[in-house]
Structure formats: C-alpha cells, structure tokens
C-alpha cells in the first residue's frame, strides 16, 4: 500500500518500471491507479509516472504534493525536481549519472550533478544513490538499468513486493527475447552493493 513516483529522462524506461509495479499490485489483488507521461516528453524531456497502490479505492491518478511514499529516479536532477512530491519521511532511490540537457550544453554550463546529489543526500528520510556504470557494463546495455534499480529498491525494502512478484510482472510485460536479460538485471540490482546511503 503505497504511492510511488518514478521519474527520469525520456527513454530511460520509466513507463515499464511503473507498469511492473502496477502489474505486481494486480497480482496481489490490490487496488491500483497510474498516470504516465507519453509523447513529447520522451524526446529528451522529463518523464514522470505516478503509481498508486492500496487496499481501498484510489481516486486520483496523480499523487498530491508531499504524499508519495517512495521516489524512484533514474536521473538525479529529475529526482531533485520531483522531491516536492515525496513525503518528508519518504524514501528516495536514484541513479547518480547525469543526463545533460542540450540547453545546458549550449550555455556551456552543464548542471552540477554533484551538487544535486549532495542536496539529495541532505534530505530527511532514507536516501540511496546508486551508480549504473558497472551494471550497464555487466548487462551490456544501459536499457536494462531501470529494472536493476527496481531490484536494488526491493533489496532496500523500499518496495512492498518480493523479487518473484516483479519477475512475474516481467513475464507479462516484457517481450520473450528480453525476458532473461531483464531477470538478470533484477537479480544484479538486488545484489548491488555500490551505493551511498543516508
């Protein structure tokens, strides 16, 4: 029973991640509702999914400000941008590798990802920052990193599900030829010890 916000930059697999949680919730017979950003935002824009899971009827597809229990972020600036949606005592897990916006590159001022991560770590509430570099290398492609991060979130107890439930959700949602890689990504994420905590 929780409200999850998932965010990142278009193309990082936010939609699949939100569908996995929704599918897992369905597997438990829980009430659920989601809201997704589809379309223009994918082209390098900020993308956010709201995933609401509960035992009673859920009305709004959008999570109100300061109400999310968990924020899962694939990009640190987006994590910081979405922080107002997270409860003060809510949990945050985020990748640390920045995706620089074209705009920042043009102005010659890439955003300060280290300052962003420092601000994330300074917050109240459980915060875990993870690097995706080693994971990407092992998996052979950055596209599976989203599922790996869900694995790490599982291990840290941020998600209400067991790894098997996410695996079952993968089987429903992912094309057969990518299933094994995704399962591996989930396992690697669960085993991942490269992270900072606060």
């Amino acid at each position, binding site marked *: 029973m929780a409200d999850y916000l998932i965010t990142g930059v278009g193309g990082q697999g936010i939609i699949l991640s939100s569908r996995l949680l929704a599918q897992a*919730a369905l597997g438990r017979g829980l009430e659920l509702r989601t809201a997704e950003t589809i379309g223009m935002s994918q082209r390098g824009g900020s993308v956010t999914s709201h995933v609401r899971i509960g035992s009673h009827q859920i009305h709004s597809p959008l999570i109100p400000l300061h109400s999310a229990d968990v924020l899962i972020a694939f990009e640190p600036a987006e994590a910081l941008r979405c922080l107002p949606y997270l409860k003060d005592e809510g949990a945050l897990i985020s990748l640390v590798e920045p995706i620089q916006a074209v705009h920042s590159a043009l102005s010659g001022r890439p955003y300060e990802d280290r300052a962003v991560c420092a601000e994330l770590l300074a917050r109240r509430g459980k915060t875990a920052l993870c690097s995706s570099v080693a994971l990407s290398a092992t998996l052979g492609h950055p596209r599976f990193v989203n599922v790996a991060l869900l694995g790490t979130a599982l291990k840290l107890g941020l998600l209400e599900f067991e790894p098997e439930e996410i695996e079952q959700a993968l089987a429903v949602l992912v094309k057969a030829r990518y299933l094994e890689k995704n399962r591996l990504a989930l396992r690697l994420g669960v085993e991942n010890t490269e992270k900072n905590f606060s």
Partner: protein
Amino acid sequence: MEKQLYMGNQAMGLAAIDAGISLVSGYPGTPSSEILETIAAHNPGDIYVEWSVNEKAALEVAAGAAYCGARALVTMKQVGLNVAADPLMSLAYIGVKGALVVIVADDPGPISSQTEQDSRSFAAFCKVPIFDPSSPEEAYALLLEAFDFSEKYQTPVLFRPTTRVCHGCAAFARGPRKQKNAPAPFVKDSKWVIFPRLAQEAHRRIEKRNDALSAILSEKSWNFFRGQALKSADGRRLGLAVSGVTYAYACEALDRLGLSDIKLLKITTPFPFPKELAADFAKGLDEVLCLEELDPVLEKELLILSAQRRLNWTVRGKWSGDAPRAGELSCDALLTLLGAFLDAPKAAQSDENSAAPAASAVELPQRPPVLCAGCPHRASFYAVKQAMKGQRAIFTGDIGCYTLGNAAPLNMVDTCLCMGACLTIAQGLKRAEADAQIFAFIGDSTFFASGMTGVVNALYNACPIVLVVLDNANTAMTGNQPHPGLGQTMLGSASPPLAIEKILEGMGIDFIQICDPFHLPAAVHAARAAATYCSEKARLCALIYRAPCIAVAKPQSVFVIDDARCTGCRRCLREIGCPAIGLAADTGHAQIDARLCYGCGLCESLCPTRAIINSSQQPESATSAAEGRKGARHG
C-alpha cells in the same frame, strides 16, 4: 473475465471491440493514438482498421459504414476535431443507421497540442451528445453505453477522455464481446443527401431530440448526485459540480479533507445537459462550485438554469474567479480551490499541502523536448540554414517532430499554426514581403494529411516559395504510425506506397530535388539551387530531404571525440544542438554520449579539426562504444 491492467486508451480500444464495431478509422494525435493501435493489436479478425490520411477522411469513412448499419469508431485528438468539423456538423443533421462514436481526446495544459480547446463546447455547437469519462474503467463501460446510445438515437456521439484518462492505468475486468452488427447493403434514400430543405427539417428535429435527451439523461445512472449540503461557518449550504477526471481529483481531495459526504453532482454527459437532475441537485443549496476541465461548461449550464428557473443560489467556478480559466487541474489544485470555497478544516492541511515547494539550491536543467540524436530533421534544417546564411529568409514550419527545429541552436521554425499551414502561411508572407526567400518545411505524414492542397494553391496562384519535404518515413511524434507514403496499412497489408516526388511532378513542379540530408555539402548545394531557381524563375520548387527516423532505422556505429585533435571550439555543440554531444568538465573538450549517439555523422561534417571520428574506424573505442550504445528511444 479476470481483472487486468489496462491503460485508458487500451480500455477504450477493447470496449469498442466488445461493442461490436466493424470499423475504426482515425488520425494519430496525442493523447488518442493508442486506441486505434489497441484495436489493431486485438483485432478478432473481422474489424476494418485504418489510419486515414486525416481526421476529416476518417470521419467520412466511418460515416459511410454507419450509413449501412455498421458500428463505427473514429479516434483523434481535440485539434483533429477541427479538421473533422465539416463532416461532423452535417452528420449531426443526417444521422446514422448503425452507430458512430467519435473519440476526441482533449489535452488539458496543453501538454502537447496547439490549443487547450474543450470538446464539450464543441458538442454543444454541433448539437451532438457527448460523454466525459473520469477514469479508464469508467471509459470502458461508458463507451459500450455510447455505442448503444448512438444506435438508439441514430446520431453520431462524441466521447471525450482527457490525458489522465487516456494515459493512466487501472485494473478491471473486461466484458464479453457483443455480436457485431452485420452491416446491410446501403439502402438508397434521399435522407443521406444534405440539402437546405433537409437541413431545415433536421435542425428542428434535433433540437427537439436534444431537449428530450436532456430529460432522458437526467435519469441515467452515470449522471448523479449524492451527499448532503455542507454548512459553511456562516450557514451557507454548499455543494460541488464536477465533470470528467475532475471527479477523481475531487473524490481524492474530499477524502483528504474529510468531507466526502458533501453534496456532489457528477455530470458525465454535459450535452445535452441533464437539466432536471441539476435542478433537483440545486434544491437545498445556497452555493455550488463547478470544477471542470476546460471551459466553464457546467458553470454556464447551471447559470442558465438558474436564470430560467429563478434558482436562489450562487453558481461559482471559472467565471466567478473561483477556479482558473485555463490549464490542467489536479488533486493539488482542487485542495486549494476547495479549501477556499469550503473555508474548510483544510486550513491546517492546505498550509502543508499547498505551500510552494522550497526552491532547490541547485539550478536544475531545463528539458524542453528536442530532436533526437541522429534525427534527419536536424541535418535538413542545418543544411538550409547554412545555404541561406547571410540572406533574408523565412522558414515556415508545421506540426510534427520537426516543429522542434524551432529550438536553439537551429532556430529554423519561424511560424507554426496547424497541420499543413507551412505552405499557405508562406504564401501569405510572400504576398506581404515580395523579396523574401521563403522555405516551407513539411513532414511526410503532414504532407499527405493537409499539405497537398497548399502546394496546389501555390502553383495555381503562382507563388514562388521553396517547399522542403522532410521525409523520414514515419509519423514519429505521435508514436510511429504508418502513412500513405510507406506502403503498409494497419491491417498489415502492403499497399503501393505513394511517392511524394511523383505527386509533386504530377502537380507540375519542374524543380524537384531529392537528397540525403546527412550528405551535408550536397544538401546545402541543393538548398541554394532551389532558392536560386525560385527567385530566378519565380516558381515554386521542391526539395525532398529523405532519411529515416531513428525509430525506424538501425543505429550506426557511434562517433567519438579524438581528444588529441579537439580544440574545444564547441562548434559541434553550438551549431546543431545534438543531445548526444556534451562538454567534458575536466578538459573543456566536446564529448559524445555513447548511450545516445545514433551514428548519423552530422557532427563529423562540422568539425574544423577533424576531431570527430566514426568509432568503427577505431578498433579500441568500437568495443566500449558498442557496449554503451542506446537503442531506439520511443516506447
């Protein structure tokens, strides 16, 4: 059937199948596109599915089928209804024999549209009933009702979900599929022919019908009110009126405020407005707050009702300044609006909830949507820009991914209005500024949808502009749909692709050049030649820049920066704005993000020191680059 996870658009697509449709037609448009795609993906085998060339064609195709007794669905976004307005206005008078539902997906915000228009207002204008679902599961059940309604009253009906209904998921159980209407052969009858005399009679008839429907809709379970008037501190009795997804936000907000029992009116069919139900609701209330997206439709109807029946209450909403006139609502917005209206115990909560989030100490990057790394439009715009450097030139743009060419550093879109306008606005500009060199940029899908008539207009009226067709073999922005130039239909059958150059030739254009925009010198040369031809011969000429969208093309080997040669001049960054090119903080040199690079090579053509190299020519970098490479971006 058991509960499954469905996105709103999937729910509607499946509902249409379960309602027994024989045909679905549409034109892609966010947030509606997945509805038709769902029907194609779950086609039991006997539904005709078509992406039509534009929304007008889609509605007319569906109307033809509905004349024969078929159940037909049309899908589009809200601005698409502007294109389909001509047939819809007449069809309201002509009616249908089977059933015809037009799903028009509105885009509050707007998030990705030219306007924030409210299709509920359109329904009142074209005098056609409209359904306004508040959730994916309601959309499923309601669409089934909408088909029955259309068939019973022999009228097209509109169905208006919004983004949060279309692009959100819920879990529910789908029902069984109804028997498909077997369309009968067309029965010749003068009633299918619109004539002023028929229009006079039809108008009178549908006004009477709509009045009758108002009473009928007052009895339907999907329009209802519940709860008790809430007494304010000074004794005023308060209630709420909502429509569409705002109902969901209201339920959530009221739960949080502990006020779920407040008298609340939910209007699911805002036209014809269920007056009797509303009058009943008004009893015992001193004030009502209308919460709706986007126009003050409920507010206006309640105000009219108040005047007609001399109701002794105050109607509040957008016009009274109690709700925002424009923009998307949300649960947060409602907490604030309700707080103010209800003077509620919200006082404590809303301070917590609606306090502006503290600004982050760090400046966060702006992420407007940009052309993808490897997008051929970047190369096309750059080529024309280079060709016209130092000369007065105007670049009219159009709707599609290529609208994003307006952003820095390309700045190659000077106007953009609506589908197909690049050509015709260009002509108006030319009449006003005869000496300007004008380039009209249009995409392949847009060309078929509404560009061809603009070309004819320019030729017929002898207007010398340069037409630039950006042919990326895709309808990309809306999610990679096929179009007439590609030879593939939604039924999977091959159809002979329509060659744009042949169409232009057939229209009588003498100068037509086709180039690969990634061959930069040739592309620049062609643009110069076109401009020269245009001004010397005072005739329209055409350039077709042809290279596939990255969503439909395999990635090539990535490019890398040779640090030994890079001088940090940043030309690659400044000139083309590719998202894969960034700045290495330590060296100040350019760096290419191998996750994003698609291997188009445009940057290589720009580098003055030849510091950008194809990694396939560099054995060591090829391995690490291949590992980091990202595939197609959409999804």
